[in-house]
């Protein structure tokens, strides 16, 4: 029952503020897509536009071949999970989940027994069996979140939209629910779009990630795509920690000062550029070619990772180096670093 969603050059302003400036995105049936971006990037606006809660100034949203505006909200059949769940607090959990089914026109409304069964099945699916008589105020945050999901699934949505689905939960519950949601998606196969500002969450969960910044989509791709081959400096910086090196590209090599630091560049970009290197792509080496000399100034621990901060002559900021499986150097030690992978962006 899932359907493709096509977003065609959407523009949306709120008074003077341009929330979305020409956003296009194709979402395949049964795909799980994350809209990732900092706050104010327009990701929630885009989600609300897909749901029809906002009206675009320009452009359109297609469900399959149908312009969404031609459908009433009811006929759109959108499962929307609100950031703060928006559970009806004067209704029990069961009544909340049944609400959509009971809202159908008389002819299409399942009978009471059928509704009861469906509610039971859905609560089973979200692992809250037997809680149908409770009120939302009597549930934990994680439980409310799953009730909201069950309520959205009850209308057999064509598209499932989730706004910061785990935003209001604490870190532990968040991790559990993440795995659970991916599993649920695999089983139910709804076309799903969710909004998040947490890059880890987006990369772990989504088939594809769309990164938004300032009302535009910067890049769309699989987790590996966007992480390893960021299309813009913004994407590169937003997805994780990164070191920046000003370099000059000559031929197939990038030079830091007069020292070649990265070779084998296929595209001939020539001239000044910025080289973005993640901490795990810096390796301590013994040999000279394509290596950057530096002094270890600081060592720190970040969860399971050990980090060295290495001062390099000619660079104001120390380089962060992951020491995952490397022998830890001593503070004050002179080392050489080789860049195993980097992203090159022409200087602005």
């Amino acid at each position, binding site marked *: 029952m899932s359907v493709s969603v096509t977003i065609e050059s959407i523009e949306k302003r709120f008074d003077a503020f341009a929330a979305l400036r020409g956003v296009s995105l194709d979402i395949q049936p049964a795909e799980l897509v994350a809209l990732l971006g900092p706050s104010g990037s327009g990701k929630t606006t885009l989600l609300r536009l897909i749901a029809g*809660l906002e009206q675009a100034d320009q452009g359109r949203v297609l469900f399959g071949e149908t312009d969404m505006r031609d*459908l009433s*909200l009811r006929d759109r059949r959108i499962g929307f999970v609100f950031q703060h769940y928006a559970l009806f607090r004067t209704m029990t959990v069961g009544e909340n989940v049944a609400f959509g089914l009971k809202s159908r026109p008389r002819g299409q409304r399942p009978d009471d027994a059928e509704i009861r069964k469906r509610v039971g099945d859905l609560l089973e699916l979200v692992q809250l069996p037997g809680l149908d008589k409770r009120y939302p105020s009597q549930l934990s945050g994680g439980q409310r979140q799953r009730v909201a999901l069950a309520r959205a699934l009850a209308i057999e949505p064509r598209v499932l939209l989730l706004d910061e689905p785990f935003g209001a939960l604490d870190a532990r519950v968040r991790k559990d629910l993440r795995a659970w949601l991916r599993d649920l998606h695999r089983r139910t196969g709804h076309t799903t779009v969710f909004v998040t500002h947490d890059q880890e969450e987006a990369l772990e969960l989504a088939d594809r990630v769309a990164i938004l910044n300032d009302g535009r989509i910067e890049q769309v791709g699989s987790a590996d795509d966007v992480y390893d081959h960021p299309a813009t400096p913004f994407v590169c910086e937003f997805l994780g920690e990164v070191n920046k090196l000003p370099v000059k590209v000559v031929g197939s090599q990038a030079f830091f000062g007069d020292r070649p630091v990265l070779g084998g560049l296929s595209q001939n970009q020539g001239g000044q550029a910025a080289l973005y290197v993640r901490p795990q792509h810096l390796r301590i080496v013994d040999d000279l070619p394509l290596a950057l000399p530096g002094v270890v100034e600081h060592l720190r621990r970040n969860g399971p990772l050990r980090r060295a901060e290495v001062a390099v002559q000619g660079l104001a900021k120390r380089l962060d180096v992951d020491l995952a499986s490397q022998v830890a150097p001593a503070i004050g030690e002179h080392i050489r670093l080789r860049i195993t992978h980097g992203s090159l962006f022409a200087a602005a």
Partner: protein
Amino acid sequence: MSDAALPQFRTDTAQKRDTRRVRGEGVVVQAVLITISLAFLALFLLLPLVSVFVEAGARGWTAYMAAVTEPDAVAAIHLTLLVAGIAVPFNVVVGIAAAWAIAKFAFRGKNLLISLIDLPFSVSPVISGLVFVLLFGAQGYFGAWLKAHDVQIIFALPGLVLATVFVTFPFVARELIPHMQSLGSADEEAALTLGASGWRTFLTITLPNVKWSLFYGVLLCNARAMGEFGAVAVVSGKIRGLTNTMPLHVEILYNEYMSAAAFAVASLLAGLALVTLALKTLLEWHYSDSIAASRRH
């Protein structure tokens, strides 16, 4: 695959109707509801208010001035100011004390105390006056003793003050309590740990924190104190020039068919109401954060 299931229709009206239906009603429904509201308010609020000033001016400016400057009217104005001048400060002191005890300390019976402070709100004004007549009237529990010692409470200023204090008892406290509760005690604790005395802490920390809700409470308390009718009617005896407050003076004039004069004095009270309302609204607009219970009475 599922696209075939989607109904196919495309009209401009469908588009327009659709977005509006997410939240809010159609223009027609809005217009109807707004009209009903305005008509209701006009009928029950605006017309009476306007009529006070129209009737007051019915006999012209000279008659108006004569009505509000004749000796009995002036005496009534003085008495009203005097009663409010005693009752309001008294309630300010008690209200602050009650709010301090209730908001800053945890003790048993707190909710009962709050309910008791609110009690006068659910007592008819007439009963508020009656209780003092039962205590201090000629045939009241202390009537004989008071007569023997030549102390007059009922049909005199003390009775008017007592009845007014009873009626306005909750006003200041019920503005201050929720506000002080929401502020917590952290500021005061900080001041005390910095070496401030309790009294200094109260004057320099607590009082400035709640000054707007205090003012708000005083405003409402004063409006009620000056406008109270039922309670003072019972204890006043309505002796002209002596125990007649402004509202009682309005009644007497009205009952003697001196309608224009009655409305003239009433217009002063209506003016007071408008000033109160204006100040109250200004407070709500500018200090809504610091008036905890600004929307409940």
